[in-house]
């Protein structure tokens, strides 16, 4: 009798585990976005490819804007344009919400491969900007610890230097655009290639802050009007 009870208990335990595991595996949104995992990681933590960005924990509004921009070809990258071509807004919104809610740990900070002078120049541009050339500090919009702000200002942490440089370049050349007024296009337009290298190197060398979540909406005033972020 007792033996029977024990085997029943073991069976029940196994069943419960299997069911729980099954339920976890079957998170329908996680399953839907497995298509993203081969480049961005299952939780959007990024992969070893330095050109594919981390998605996890970025504001949902930002991620949604990017998905829509890829679909409508305002942001040009053929593999993404192709994948999202026939997805309605609601489908894209669900993907954005999923990755915004993930919080895998940030990767270790990159060890800079540029000189200290370049790094110093990056730090100055990122934290103070260059008012004479009309360049606001990155921190003015992206936050004092670069975690971004809800609903649509992305954090800049956990990104590799090459990705950051490629995006700033894409804005300068018009292959990446945002809702008008496209403030990043204005800012990137003032940057030289040397500025881009310096900014990307310094940002990618930053360690993770204690709280990497984006700041609540309205935490600070925006220095310029951006179509993506309500002011």
């Amino acid at each position, binding site marked *: 009798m007792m033996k029977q009870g024990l085997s029943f208990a073991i069976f029940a335990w196994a069943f419960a585990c299997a069911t729980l595991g099954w339920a976890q595996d079957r998170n*329908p*949104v996680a*399953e*839907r*976005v*497995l*298509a*993203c*995992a*081969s*480049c961005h990681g299952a939780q959007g933590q990024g992969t070893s*490819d330095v050109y594919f960005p981390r998605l996890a924990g970025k504001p949902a509004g930002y991620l949604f804007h990017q998905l829509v921009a890829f*679909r*409508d*070809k*305002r942001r040009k990258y*053929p*593999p993404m*344009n*192709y*994948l*999202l*071509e*026939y*997805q*309605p807004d*609601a*489908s894209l919104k*669900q993907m954005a919400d999923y990755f915004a809610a993930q919080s895998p740990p940030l990767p270790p900070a990159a060890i800079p491969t540029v000189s200290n002078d370049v790094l110093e120049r990056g730090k100055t541009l990122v934290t103070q900007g260059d008012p004479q050339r009309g360049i606001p500090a990155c921190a003015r919009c992206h936050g004092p610890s670069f975690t971004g702000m809800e609903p649509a200002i992305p954090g800049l942490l956990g990104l590799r230097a090459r990705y950051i440089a490629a995006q700033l370049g894409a804005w300068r050349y018009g292959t990446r655009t945002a809702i008008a007024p496209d403030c990043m296009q204005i800012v990137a337009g003032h940057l030289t290639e040397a500025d881009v290298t310096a900014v990307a190197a310094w940002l990618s060398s930053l360690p993770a802050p204690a709280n990497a979540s984006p700041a609540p909406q309205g935490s600070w005033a925006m220095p310029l009007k951006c179509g993506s972020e309500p002011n």
Partner: protein
Amino acid sequence: MGKLGFSITLRWNWLWCAALLIGLPQPSFAGASTTPDMALVAKGEYLARAGDCIACHTTPGDKLFAGGRPMLTPFGTLYTSNITPDPETGIGNWTADQFYGAMHTGRFPDGGLMYPAMPFGSYTKVTRADSDAIFAYLKTIPPVHRANRPHDLDFPYNNRSLILGWRTLYFNEGTYKPDPSKSADWNRGAYLVEGLGHCAMCHTAINALGGSSESEAFQGGLIPMQKWYAPSLTSNKEAGLGDWSIEDISDLLRTGISRHGAVYGPMAEVVYNSLQYLSSDDIRAMAVYLKSLGEGGPPQANAPALPTDVSSLLMSLGRTVYEARCASCHGSDGAGKPPKYPPLAGNQSIEMQSAVNPTRMVLNGGFPPGTQGNPYPYGMPPFAQLLSDDEVAAVVTYIRQAWGNRGTPISSQQANELRSAPLN
């Protein structure tokens, strides 16, 4: 993912809907504005969906029907025309007669010839009443003032008089004639598939002259420029639907997914922009007609006797790749988890003679279209960045031959060539 390849649309991406207005400005007859007949307009909107006018005449992310979308062709680039009711740059000054003339005969109001990228070879089958409804609808959309961009065609194709020769060879003018020996459903389906649906534009092979022969209707072919294969609708070895139930065919057409597989590539566009909006009666009618096209075909062949040493090696590498990358969704037995993850075993789209589509799905991945019937589709990841040419060839060979599938092996060179296929 995306298995049953049933890709209609953009095969004639390039030749489709391009219509350059070269005529003189037409005198305006539209002086007095009359209240449009809303029932007629609604019918016209529905029929414009059935004709998928938007696919060519709207640039993605831009204004409805304002044209300007580039269509790459082997003969050069065509730019689609503005079909908004703007009097100067659109069709605001056209009459219903002139619009019907364009649909039915492929001619502009001044008699000029349209390039057969505009599927007038199919639209000629549309009734006058349906053409008038579409015209009434187009009159109600917001006018966009934007001049048509001249085509950029190579010599000698920039000579429009060549179209006369093309028309002599390939164009048969005439409204659809119902076949009294068939059911009402069948005739309605044939009218939609052969007419507004212009399915033959992709699913019939195109020759070097950009024409297709009626005797080869719906037998499939590679879509020029796009490098997707539009499978045969008459062979049950390809996308022939003779062995499918009417319900499964209807699901695929209307929602983009089914028990047997999903639409992908250019066919995803057709479902997204056109078929998902059609009534269940019309979808069913199309299913009845499509099923009849695939009936009476040769029975499915068995798997070819395996294999040479090379394909053995491919199969063993392919199995390793499959178990590591694919089996978690499609299953070690290839059964998939339909309709989320399509089955690969017994999937016509995987096994068919051309390996282009399964290879591209492995390289590029894809999502079925998000539709009213399937608003949150499950996607397949791209593997181009993760797998070598050898691994792609191996895994495609594996899925084409495992589980009794009867496809042929592919080489790593074939896999490599498709890496450069255009993505949009």
